[in-house]
C-alpha cells in the first residue's frame, strides 16, 4: 500500500476503532474478544483499503466486516465462549441520572444480558438498528440481506429480547 493510502487508513482506523469495539462488545459480551474482533476487522479493511477507500459507505463497510468477523469467530469449534450468563443486576444502580424511573433503568441493565441470549443475526440486527441507528436499508446493506429480512429479523429479535428480559426478571424475582 502506498504511503498516502496507509496514512488515510490510519486516520480511518483511529476514528472508528472505539465504535467498532463497542459494537463488537454488544455482539459478543466480552471486551477482550471485542478488541480482538475490532483489530481483525481493521486488518481485513487494510487489505482492501485501496479498493474501498473512496467508498461513500465506508463506515457501513467496516460494520459488515466486523459482523462477518464475529460470525466467523462464532462458527469456529474452538471459539471462546461468550459471556452470556453474566450476573443479572439485583438492585438499582444509584449512580444513574434522576431523569429515568428506577424500573426503567433496571430494565435497561437487563437489555444487554437479554440480547446476548438471542441468535447472532437477531442480535446483530438489533445492534445495527438501535445502537448504530442505521435505517432498514443501511442495515440490509451491512448484513447482506433484503430489507424485508431486516424487518422480519428486527420484529423477531425484539420479541425474543422482550421474552429474554422477562425471563431474566423472573429469575431475579425468584
Amino acid at each position: 500500500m502506498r504511503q498516502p493510502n496507509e496514512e488515510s487508513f490510519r486516520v480511518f482506523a483511529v476514528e472508528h476503532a472505539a465504535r467498532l469495539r463497542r459494537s463488537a462488545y454488544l455482539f459478543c459480551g466480552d471486551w477482550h474478544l471485542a478488541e480482538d474482533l475490532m483489530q481483525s476487522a481493521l486488518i481485513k479493511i487494510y487489505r482492501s483499503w485501496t479498493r474501498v477507500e473512496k467508498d461513500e459507505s465506508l463506515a457501513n463497510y467496516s460494520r459488515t466486516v466486523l459482523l462477518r468477523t464475529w460470525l466467523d469467530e462464532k462458527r469456529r469449534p474452538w471459539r471462546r465462549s461468550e459471556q452470556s450468563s453474566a450476573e443479572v443486576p439485583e438492585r438499582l444502580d444509584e449512580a444513574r441520572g434522576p431523569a429515568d424511573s428506577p424500573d426503567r433503568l433496571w430494565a435497561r441493565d437487563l437489555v444487554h444480558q437479554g440480547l446476548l441470549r438471542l441468535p447472532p443475526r437477531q442480535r446483530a440486527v438489533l445492534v445495527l438498528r438501535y445502537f448504530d441507528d442505521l435505517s432498514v436499508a443501511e442495515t440490509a446493506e451491512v448484513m447482506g440481506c433484503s430489507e424485508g429480512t431486516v424487518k422480519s429479523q428486527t420484529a423477531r429479535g425484539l420479541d425474543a429480547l422482550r421474552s429474554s428480559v422477562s425471563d431474566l426478571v423472573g429469575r431475579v424475582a425468584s
Partner: protein
Amino acid sequence: MSEEDVRGGLRDAVVEEPPLNFDPDALVATARQQVRRRRALMAAGAATVAVAVAAVALPVALGRAPAHTMAADQPTSTAPATTAPTTSAPARIEWPPPGVQPVHRTAEQLRTRGQEMSTYLRQTVPAVLPDVSDVEVGEFGGEAVGDFSDDQPSVNAAVDYTAGGLRYSIDVQVWAPGGANDLLDVVCPESTSGCQQIGEQDGGPLVVTTESVLGDGKISSVYHLRKDGSAVRIAAYNYQLSGEGKQFGTTIPVTVDQQLRLATDPELGL
C-alpha cells in the same frame, strides 16, 4: 419494553468500557506482515503447481471427469495420479469473480436444499471414504443445526465417522453465490500454518488451509471457490466436533484428494 428502552439499554451497556489502547502503527505493521505472508504463500502454491502437477482421480461412482490440478506433494493423498494438466495457477486469486449475481433463498428453500444435500452425502461419503465406518451425516443448518433464516449466506452440516477406533468429523459448508465474497480474506490470513492454492476446477480456484487448534487439534480445509461466486468448504478434523472429552487422532484420516472430491462435487451447492 419499548424500542427506546432497547436503545437506552444498548447505550448503557457500553458506558463502562475499558480504556482503548489502540496503536494504529502496530495494527498496520501486523496487517503488512499478513499481506506479505499471504502473497508469499500464494506464490509458493503457484510455483508448486507449475513445477509438478497431478490430477486428482475423481470418483468413478460420481461419473465426473477430473479437470482441476493439485500439487503433487500432497502428503495425505491416496488417489492415484492420472493425467497431468499443465496450467499453472495464478499467483493471486481474483475473488469474488466479477459479475457475481447474489442468490437469495428463503429459510424454507434452504431447509429443503439442506435435506437434499444430507441425503446425497449419506450415499456419497461412504463411497468417497471407503476405509471409514459408521458414517453419520448431520442435519444442515446455519447458526444452529436445523436453524435457517431468509437470505442466510451459507449452510453447514457435520459428518461423523469412525477410523482406527476413533470418531472424527468433517464439516461441510456451502455458500450461495454472493454469500462468500470475503471468504478468501477471512480464510487465508487467519490460517495459522498455511493457505495454498492448489489448482482450479471449472474455472474456480481450489484452496487448502491447515490449522492447529486446541493443542493437539488439526483441521485441514479444502475450499472450492466457484465461478458463480458460490463456495464449498470441506473441513476435516482429527477429532470429533461434538461430544465431551475430545480424543485427538495423530493424523486426519481423510486425504486432501478425498476432500477435493467432495468440495468439487456439483451436487453440493446452493
